[in-house]
């Protein structure tokens, strides 16, 4: 059975760039594969190994400007292919500077309907940069598929999937008929790093780059919102000494001085 995975080239939260006035400079932050998308791809390739069928990767470049982000975007898609995807359909359109969840879902639903239409679509529980967790269910509605989110275990049965989903205070074991969109948690599996051979093979896998007009959408010309860094005001004092006894004493002295420890 064919499976689709939606993936995001997310802003790398470990490489924050900002201006002196605290404005985040999106243009200068590199894009990386959103962390939990790895789990989704890995799960899809595990299932497809046992059932046959293809793993499709769907994505769109959500952060512009395109000329600054295209190389990172392609690397992310190649990585997704190395991790288990077999063919990718992606939209990169210079009119998109920022795509919000509603538009992202619209684009993905059109891609999925037009290319492959797999009956099972996987995604990560949240993207690392925006963490909205809303695209999977929003997309499911657009596709008229069932939805189940925060899945910690899943297995494919005949025409349905059985999942264990996190429902905050409890866990629910559910039987969800296909077609369905499923978002998976970071704990569902432990993805392996791609091997060199997988990485090399990824460059030969088909990657179809499309524009909005290819999926019958008009240019969007969105703009960035006002993104600001959260200030971190810390003293950053490293306590170093040959003797850990002395370090412990120094730390206790500091904590007393700070008024957080009372002797």
């Amino acid at each position, binding site marked *: 059975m064919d499976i689709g995975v939606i993936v995001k080239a997310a802003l790398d939260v470990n490489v*924050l760039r900002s201006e002196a006035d605290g404005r985040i400079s999106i243009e200068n932050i590199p894009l990386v594969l959103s962390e939990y998308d790895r789990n989704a791809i890995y799960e899809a390739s595990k299932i497809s190994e046992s059932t046959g069928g293809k793993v499709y990767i769907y994505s769109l470049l959500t952060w512009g400007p395109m000329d600054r982000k295209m190389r990172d975007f392609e690397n992310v898609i190649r990585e997704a292919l190395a991790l288990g995807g077999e063919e990718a359909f992606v939209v990169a359109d210079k009119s998109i500077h920022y795509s919000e969840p509603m538009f992202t879902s619209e684009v993905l639903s059109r891609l999925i309907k037009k290319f492959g239409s797999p009956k099972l679509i996987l995604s990560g529980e949240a993207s690392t940069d925006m963490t909205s967790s809303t695209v999977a269910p929003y997309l499911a509605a657009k596709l008229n598929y069932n939805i189940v989110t925060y899945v910690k275990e899943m297995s494919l049965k005949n025409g349905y999937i059985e999942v264990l989903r996190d429902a905050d205070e409890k866990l629910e074991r559910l039987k969800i008929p296909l077609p369905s969109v499923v978002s998976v948690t970071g704990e569902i599996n432990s993805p392996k790093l791609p091997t060199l051979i997988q990485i090399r093979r990824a460059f030969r896998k088909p990657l179809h780059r499309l524009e909005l007009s290819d999926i019958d959408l008009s240019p969007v010309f969105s703009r960035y919102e006002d993104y600001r860094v959260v200030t971190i005001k810390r003293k950053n004092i490293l306590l170093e000494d040959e003797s850990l006894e002395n370090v412990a004493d120094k730390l206790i002295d500091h904590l007393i001085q700070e008024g957080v420890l009372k002797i």
Partner: protein
Amino acid sequence: MKVLAVLDNPKYIPDIHGFLEKAGFSESTLYAVSNFDIPDGFDKVIRVDDVSSDVLVRMGDELDGFDIYIAPHTKKSLEALSYYAGYRGIPIATEIIDYIVEEKKIVRNILSGRGIVSYRVATPIALTIAPGKFKGSISRTPEVIHNDVKPTPSLISIEEKSFGGVDIENAEVVVGVGRGFRDKDDLNIAFELAKILGGEVGCSRPIAADYHWLDEDRWIGISGKKVRGKLYIAIGVSGAPQHIMAANDTRVIVAVNKDKNAPIFEYADYGVVADLYKFIPIFIDKLKRRLDV
């Protein structure tokens, strides 16, 4: 303005009311669709069996015509409301942490807590509200109606999670443990330290979600609990933004990590570069002597 709240747990009603009050919508027409009885706080309550995505969609016209669709940012409500927004084709903004009254802007975190964005939204809109950020109370006696739309039967079984009932969000001192600990039993030294300091033990996501060494109510991070007391001591935690940004409101942060280059030190007031297995017992010993306990 007409507001529809989607609720699957009574404990979040003050959060929803709090947001509406702050955003100036407390005089609006307020409806709720919920799977429990609500005696107060709404003009109309539509009781259903479950507030799942399929139930909302099947309710049809009954849910049409609202300006704001609002729910707490919990896993099930988020799923149901997002699906409904997709079905109706209206925009959605999730995990709202604040509302700027003068500018009429909603606020949410981005970049795993390292950034913040505020913006205006147009109605109709769907919103999910981060728990614990707003608190309010609106009093109305609702008309209650029942809608017996059935959810697609999908439940096989329910498994309860175990919770020890600790409240690290309101603890003054939290000792946080990460994957630097090699074994569940080794966490004892963290519990001993927390006890001496009169605090609670918290943990990184893998300790709760992967290893299940501790209950999830101790999980600190953007997908767990926020800590905001006077002292947070992170031990064997690398300092991923998804973890440490949830401690950013703590007054003093201490980090113990054997890797000098661990990101946690950038987020700490005091850093100790040491093997936790060597340092923590010494630290405990010194504390005991100096605190005379």
